[in-house]
């Protein structure tokens, strides 16, 4: 499909404001005026609407396709949440209003949403306090690591290292590194963190450890109490990557379990849409001793029930976002939490775990499941067996696209060969999962009899497999004028 730039017809009117009263040359000196036009397209509104409508049809999304992309929690995003975020009382609110004299009074509704969202998340996770400012999961990680660093600096601790298990999301080591830490990786044993491996690298220079629980293999970290105790012994902090919180709401609170810092992905567990890559929201929760280091501003409630933004926290790490985070995303998550309530949130986790185990059991005779025991909200299978016939995990993923499904996550975590990670989520019906399982079993059967057919997939989509090597070597990342 040709790009929107090739559809341009100079002079064609789009959504133009009325003709300005001044010529630009009356408003700015000649030397400051742009010399050549930008080269933006000139299109009618219909041209634009048709272009993007046609583009949208080249995408799989949760609204149209089952999307069992492991570790991404692609659950259904309720429509009413979008309406709520679009209410003019929120959408038209300028972020600097509360910084005006008595500005808090102009934004009581928004401040209440933030205050209440923090309280909900704190109760769900058992943490003492939350900030909503981080604008995505990785941003939450960085915020969390900066809080850990501020704590150690304040205590006069000389800490230089952060430990990440080898099953960790790539963002964990990256976040620790850009905050200035050396990253130490430790190997897993039986799919979970090995306390012996931890003991080998644990010393006084360790600032903390980043963990995902359940981990990226979908397994619960059984040695958690032992790990907490070990870290405490050297005044190291334990960080919880909340990417997988969807599994444990109402079953385990990370604060009770001994974690000191946690980030959540509202675009996963709390059903805000991912938008093809964002915006997300990555609130960070901390235990009581870390609360003084949270970013500013903080929202507080006074005895009369009024809400205020406060900036006077001398130990705070400062601003991590220009304002209060991705407020529009927080709003949708808040609406979702209100709608579900206590029982609903518990049911989310129960059904997410049930669905993952159901799919695991329906597939473990045809795909190797390296840790074939009760999993949490996702499970990891391996196409190692199939790869000997030449059909790799990637081929299976592509064949699923042909059947109308988004593929599971492939080749992550890195510690399982030919890895396929499935996360059905709680919002998919048994019928959908059954059909998916049948179709996947068909693909695996075809892999035995006609591997070439699987290797050729996809054949029903707008494009077949794309040449990523050529893309990286030739680097066409913008359209020529």
């Amino acid at each position: 499909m040709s790009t929107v730039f090739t559809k341009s017809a100079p002079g064609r009117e789009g959504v133009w404001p009325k003709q300005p009263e001044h010529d630009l040359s009356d408003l700015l000196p000649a030397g400051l005026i742009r010399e050549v036009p930008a080269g933006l397209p000139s299109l009618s509104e219909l041209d634009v609407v048709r272009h993007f409508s046609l583009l949208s049809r080249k995408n799989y999304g949760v609204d149209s396709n089952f999307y069992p992309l492991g570790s991404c929690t692609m659950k259904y995003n309720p429509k009413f949440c979008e309406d709520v975020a679009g209410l003019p009382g929120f959408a038209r609110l300028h972020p600097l209003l509360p910084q005006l004299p008595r500005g808090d009074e102009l934004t009581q509704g928004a401040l209440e949403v933030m205050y209440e969202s923090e309280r909900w998340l704190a109760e769900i996770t058992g943490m003492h306090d939350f900030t909503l400012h981080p604008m995505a999961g990785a941003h939450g990680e960085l915020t969390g690591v900066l809080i850990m660093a501020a704590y150690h600096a304040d205590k006069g601790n000389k800490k230089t290292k952060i430990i990440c298990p080898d099953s960790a999301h790539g963002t964990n080591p990256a976040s620790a590194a850009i905050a200035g830490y050396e990253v130490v990786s430790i190997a897993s044993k039986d799919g979970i963190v090995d306390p012996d491996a931890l003991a080998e690298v644990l010393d006084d220079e360790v600032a903390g450890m980043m963990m995902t629980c359940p981990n990226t293999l979908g397994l619960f970290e059984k040695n958690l109490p032992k790990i907490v105790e070990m870290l405490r012994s050297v005044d190291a902090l334990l960080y919880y990557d909340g990417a997988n919180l969807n599994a444990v709401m109402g079953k385990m609170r990370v604060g009770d379990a001994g974690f000191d810092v946690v980030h959540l992905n509202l675009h996963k567990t709390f059903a805000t849409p991912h938008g093809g890559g964002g915006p997300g929201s990555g609130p960070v929760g901390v235990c009581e001793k870390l609360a003084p280091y949270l970013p500013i501003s903080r929202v507080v409630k006074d005895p009369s029930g009024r809400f205020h933004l406060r900036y006077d926290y001398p130990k705070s790490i400062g601003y991590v976002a220009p304002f209060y985070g991705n407020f529009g995303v927080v709003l949708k998550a808040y609406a979702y939490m209100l709608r579900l309530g206590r029982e609903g949130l518990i049911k989310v986790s129960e059904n997410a775990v049930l669905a993952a185990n159901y799919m695991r059991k329906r597939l473990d005779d045809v795909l190797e499941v390296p840790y074939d025991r009760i999993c949490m909200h996702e499970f990891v299978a391996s196409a190692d067996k199939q790869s000997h016939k030449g059909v790799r995990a990637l081929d299976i993923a592509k064949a699923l696209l042909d059947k109308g499904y988004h593929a599971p996550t492939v080749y992550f975590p890195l510690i399982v060969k030919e890895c396929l990670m499935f996360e059905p989520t709680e919002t998919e019906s048994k019928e959908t999962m059954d059909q998916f399982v049948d179709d996947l079993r068909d693909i695996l059967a075809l892999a035995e009899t006609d591997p070439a057919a699987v290797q050729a997939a996809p054949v029903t989509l707008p494009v077949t497999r794309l040449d990523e090597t050529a893309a990286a070597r030739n680097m066409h990342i913008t359209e020529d004028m």
Partner: protein
Amino acid sequence: MFPTDLKYTPSHEWAKIEGDTATVGITSFAQEQLGDITFVDLPSVGAQVTQGSEFGSIESVKAASELYSPVTGEVIEVNGALEANPELVNQEAFTGGWMMKVKLSADPQGLLDAAAYEKTAVSCH
């Protein structure tokens, strides 16, 4: 399997030492592991490199790896052809895919010969 006139490192670089000059590249085994090479980041001429330290990096579509110098000295030439044709590393790892030439300022220590390298490369995979 590996040219016997070259010296090797356990991190899969090779060096061809001729007098006080060494030509450096990565082995055919390393390029196979990385897959289709898309980019090679090399030092500038005149830069100092140290045996065992990073001198650049190499990228394929799904992997990236640091390059560690097998020798110590000053970079006197880099292979400009790799900028437009990084695939040379895949096609001619030991010849046209060379990366830099170094004027040696110290004798390299502990490099492997072809047989020892083959043993290392095979044993860890």
